[in-house]
């Protein structure tokens, strides 16, 4: 199994309706929007039934409301809004005709019931997020957080999204990584078309058959550079590169195997050219740490020129797959 986590700071533009709602939260106010005879809270930009435009006719609702439905969270995770047991609940605020899904900090499930009256408990630090309202608590009286509202209307919301995956590793990939850890390329040759694949790809995409241990073949430790690019890195959150870096396509000599978008080791960008002969650089056992499984060739750090004369096939640059 391989664990991986992806995190990114997204930016949301809120528009005129959610912006007004979140601005009101910083002022410890809850607002809804009129839609025909109804008041919607949370407010929506459009009539959810007909899709019609809604005038920005906001009305104060709450602060107290009534629980319409609830679900007890007995064992909160790190991503839950409270660190102790609580209820997710639909709360219909006084003066509203729709329910707001939020948190009720009731102490125990025994304290929860449909029809329970609740009021907001506000955070001291409010920034225009739904969690400015920390939780609803039983009773009619809001619990103030103190302080004032936002200086400027809230128009944007930062959102640090994070998701973790656990991915099973297929047998072919396990064997491929084991070979890489020994400094070997593991090939899988299709018995029908004769094409060879690396990196533990357990199938032939041309013939649609599984490739398993019985199809393994040894591959040479020499390659030739076919096509390439030199990338000027864009600085996004999580970028690890600061200087222009190369990615090259490598044809393993004497085979039809092309390894695409490979890294080079100790090679100035000016020296990169089609026909350059290369040898793989393998990680030592000590270097094979948590990164194993992140790349197709776990033990392969990159490629280094051998110093031999360039290959001269004029159409090498077309060997891309």
């Amino acid at each position, binding site marked *: 199994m391989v664990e991986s986590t992806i995190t990114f700071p997204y930016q949301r533009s809120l528009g005129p309706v959610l912006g007004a709602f979140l601005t009101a939260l910083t002022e410890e106010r809850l607002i809804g929007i009129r839609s025909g005879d109804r008041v919607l809270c949370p407010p929506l930009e459009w009539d959810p039934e007909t899709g019609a435009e809604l005038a920005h006719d906001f009305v104060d609702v709450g602060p107290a409301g009534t629980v319409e439905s609830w679900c007890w969270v007995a064992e909160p995770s790190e991503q839950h809004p409270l660190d102790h047991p609580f209820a997710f609940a639909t709360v219909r605020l006084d003066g509203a005709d729709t329910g707001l899904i939020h948190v009720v900090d009731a102490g125990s499930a025994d304290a929860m019931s449909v029809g329970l009256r609740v009021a907001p408990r506000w955070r001291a630090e409010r920034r225009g997020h739904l969690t400015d309202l920390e939780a609803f608590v039983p009773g009619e009286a809001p619990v103030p957080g103190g302080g004032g509202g936002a200086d400027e209307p809230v128009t944007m919301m930062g959102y640090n999204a994070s998701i973790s995956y656990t991915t099973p590793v297929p047998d072919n990939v396990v064997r491929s990584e084991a070979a890489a850890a020994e400094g070997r390329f593991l090939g899988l040759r299709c018995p029908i078309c004769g094409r060879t694949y690396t990196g533990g790809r357990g199938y032939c995409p041309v013939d649609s058959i599984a490739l398993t241990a019985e199809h393994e073949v040894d591959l040479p430790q020499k390659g030739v550079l076919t096509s390439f690019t030199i990338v000027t890195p864009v600085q996004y959150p999580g970028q690890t590169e600061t200087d222009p870096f190369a990615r090259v396509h490598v044809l393993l000599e004497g085979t039809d195997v092309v390894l695409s*978008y490979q890294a080079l080791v100790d090679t100035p960008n000016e020296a990169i050219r089609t026909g350059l002969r290369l040898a793989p650089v393998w990680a030592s056992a000590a270097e094979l740490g948590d990164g194993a499984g992140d790349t197709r060739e776990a033990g392969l750090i990159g490629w280094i020129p051998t110093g031999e004369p360039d290959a001269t096939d004029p159409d090498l640059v077309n060997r891309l797959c």
Partner: protein
Amino acid sequence: MAHSPAAVVGIGQTHHKKKRWDVSLGGLVREAARRALDDAQMDWGDIDAVVLGKAPDLFEGVMKPELYLTDALGAHGKPMFRVHTAGSVGGTTGIVASHLVETGRHRRVLAVAYQKQSEGNAQFALGSGKGASLGAGGAFAPFIRSYIHRSGAPLDVGPMVAVKDRQNALKNPYAHLRLEDISVESVKASPMMWDPLHFLESCPSSDGACAVVFTDRAGGEAAAADGRPPAWVLGSAMRSEPFGFPGRDPVLPQGAADCAEDVYAQAGITRPREQIDCAELYVPFSWYEPMWLEAHHLAGPGEGWQLVESGATALDGSFPVNMSGGVLSSNPIGASGLLRFAEAALQVRGMAGEHQVDGARVAVAQAYGASAQYFSMWVVGASLDPFG
């Protein structure tokens, strides 16, 4: 074959910009959809089904946007579809919507595609959240290097496309980039981002949306009788192929050729460049104009760059390409395919304004995605029998 032809009777798009922070995500798609409905003289209640397309959810970090945007698109109580075929998704979204009409399942269908790139970062998303993301430019640059070698094209051809498309964009009020002073020299002097691609040979990151309203034969004929010319979908096709295997040629993919042959056959086209008046192709990086002209049989092998160099693909040339300014001028990724399809329809409706090709009767549009693995194309005509 279709049971009933589909007609495009409404087209709308946003003003594409680097940051559309004046609207919510819903507000963005709504802006395009409202313009399409107005163009079709319809309201939300007239629509039977909605088809939504966008690129991977990692771009904005909004999961299941098709559910989140249901109210913004008036889809309450209606079928709502999400389409996803990487960068080609906008084109595929239009094709799926047209099929819903052609099969007789629905009479009026709204297709919407969008991207709000400013909410996240495309290179982060394309790199699966890791460092050293190649970005799309880095992925395609080795293919472009191969094309330049095999075609013998002069190195100025890419910059010429970059200039031509940005000049067309100056005639399109919705286009993102407005580079008044761009020249082949300034393109070549711009930073090398993905060798051999310069910064100015690359598409921008845009926020934007596009919407198209489809109706059936009766609806299309009624619009025509009312003085609102429809665009008739004469053919549509999609192809996909694996990322890589020995023998695959990502410069001239088999899927690209098969897709083109299929769509031309449906439309009754045997001599594409003679019978088609103009083309709107998915060209996010300059060299993809000659590459797709060849891959889609609009030019012979090695002839694509000669069409560019001769000026044939300019707005006033014999075979205009990317009249709108193309992906090189506006790139809300998920919407970019539908924008191509919509531009082709605008042309045959005679409604393309300053970037109208005089007398355009038949136009082809194309979008591609992933590592040149997905292809979506359609041919639209001013009539159902433009060669009759």
